[in-house]
């Protein structure tokens, strides 16, 4: 039986009943500003600290910018640079994905190239933990809905074949829980974690819910979280058992 990959994020592993089942492919969905990039970055950081090579592919921003943002938000995590330097934690931007940036702008870049480029980097880094942030750009790359479905499937299949444990972030149009709906491609993933943002200004509340996590008896309770310089803190109420 496969083991679990601890996220190392305070409170989240309790919700996950230990962690993410190894080699699972997870989608982390939420509206803008919910903390998808930071949460997935912390997952990689914590795993890199445990000696698991981790790589993040950012397809919407420059890698350096994402890294700087993460260091700014997690100012208490002093060893990010060390992990980057020793190669156990990598943030790869479009420029690193084999000229994808330029090709994408020229609309000549195909999804298949994207997958093979990602595969090459994962092999080169010997990574076992992977984040792709985010899938929104890929949807722009493949406009036909059926082709997009097949392309996403090809991506998930490839990650599965490579044996990595991965998180793919997905952008939702709404922040509110009630107006969110699941997208067809979510079916492909072994797990779905949703991030919600509710309330206004100083009463803003962030919470998360594990919709599914195949192979795991996880919590179904929507749980608030906070982002601090020391990382995420998920206020998991372990006393609650639902089923």
């Amino acid at each position, binding site marked *: 039986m496969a083991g679990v990959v601890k996220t190392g994020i305070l409170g989240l592993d309790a919700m996950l009943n230990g962690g993410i089942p190894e*080699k699972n492919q997870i989608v982390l969905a939420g509206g803008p500003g919910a903390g998808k990039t930071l949460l997935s970055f912390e997952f990689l950081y914590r795993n890199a600290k445990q000696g698991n090579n981790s790589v993040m592919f950012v397809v919407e921003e420059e890698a350096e910018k994402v890294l700087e943002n993460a260091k700014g938000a997690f100012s208490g995590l002093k060893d990010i640079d060390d992990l980057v330097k020793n190669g156990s934690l990598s943030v790869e931007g479009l420029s690193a994905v084999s000229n994808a940036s330029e090709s994408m702008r020229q609309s000549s870049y195909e999804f298949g190239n994207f997958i093979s480029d990602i595969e090459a980097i994962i092999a080169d880094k010997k990574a076992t933990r992977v984040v792709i942030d985010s899938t929104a750009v890929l949807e722009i790359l493949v406009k036909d809905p*059926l082709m997009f*479905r*097949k392309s996403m*499937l*090809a991506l*998930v*299949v*490839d990650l*599965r*074949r490579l*044996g990595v444990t991965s998180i793919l972030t997905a952008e939702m149009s709404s922040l*509110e*829980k*009630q107006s969110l*709906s*699941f997208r*067809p*491609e979510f*079916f*492909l993933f072994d797990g779905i974690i949703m991030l*919600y943002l*509710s*309330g206004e200004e*100083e*009463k*803003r*509340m962030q*919470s998360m819910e594990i*919709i*599914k*996590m*195949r*192979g*795991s*008896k*996880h919590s*179904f*309770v*929507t749980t*608030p979280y*906070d982002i*601090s310089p020391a990382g995420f803190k998920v*206020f998991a*109420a372990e*006393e*609650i*058992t*639902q*089923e």
Partner: protein
Amino acid sequence: MASKTAARDSKGEKLRIYAAVIVVLFVLAVAANAIARNDGGVSGCMRLIQQSSKNDCLSQIAVSTGNLSVCSLMNGTYMNTCYYAISLNNTRSANCAVITNSSLQGDCYYAKATGTQNYSLCNLSGAYSSCVMNISFSQKNATLCGFLQNKTNASVCASTIYMYNAVKDYKPSACSQVSDNASYSTYSSILYGFDRMYAGNSSLNVSLSTSYLAAYLQGSISARSICYFISAYNTKNVSVCGSIGNATIRNYCGYYANISTYHSGALNYTQIAAECSSNSSASATCNSSIALVRAISTDNATICGTLGQVYSGACYFALAQKLHNPYYCGFISNTSENEICVYSMSYNQSQVYNGTV
């Protein structure tokens, strides 16, 4: 020289004293923090300087004692999460009403309703339908779905439970009660509910993921078809696939049920051959079945090529799965079935043949 040595000694002494002072101060700070956390609680927490330490300290006391008033000493977000944590603890009578953030308050009622199986609290959750559905799922009780006034939601709720029961009890006939609505919102809701009811159960993973995969690639398929698909695989009964309307899914179901039957040892070449020979009106179907099983038993793809389209597809599909080699999928002439064959192999098994054929 002597004066320089004395100066160095004096400097070293000073450094040692500074270091000792720093160590003492550090130990005192740690001790003060520990004392603050343990000296009877709240007042000790309030003496902590760092707001985050203060919040952590207060929240530990509040949750361990169930004292809501301690939460009120914290600032906004922490106060509400503190209330939330206490309210969720089912053994205490604390109330979600104290939470000032309306969304979190709704989540609190939702969690409490589902945690205690008390559907009357769903009214306060802000997500009544989902709340009642989850309680119904937990109790595996379709009659509770009757509390949902929205007919679509009630149908989704009941269908999910019927599907669960049909699969769990190995009763494919019960799939007829599952909704046949092929709209994405309906079947996806049922499948997510079903996934939830089967959370942690890995025995269905293969048939679940392959049938979901088929639904994903086909774009439109009813939950009832998925129910038949999974049931055919589980009961190793190919005839169950005949109830599926979509031809591609029906064939795919048949292939998969055949493989499941073959692996279970139930599909026996000698037995089928004996049955066919004892039947004077041995049909082409019977002969094709024999050839199919012989091809699979002997890993002989040449035989697959001699069969008609349906049996040929089934034959190549089964060989591909058995030998973990997607090469054989390439001989399936139906494009959709070929695609599903290739994808399902790596999707389910993480095994793609890398050698030569």
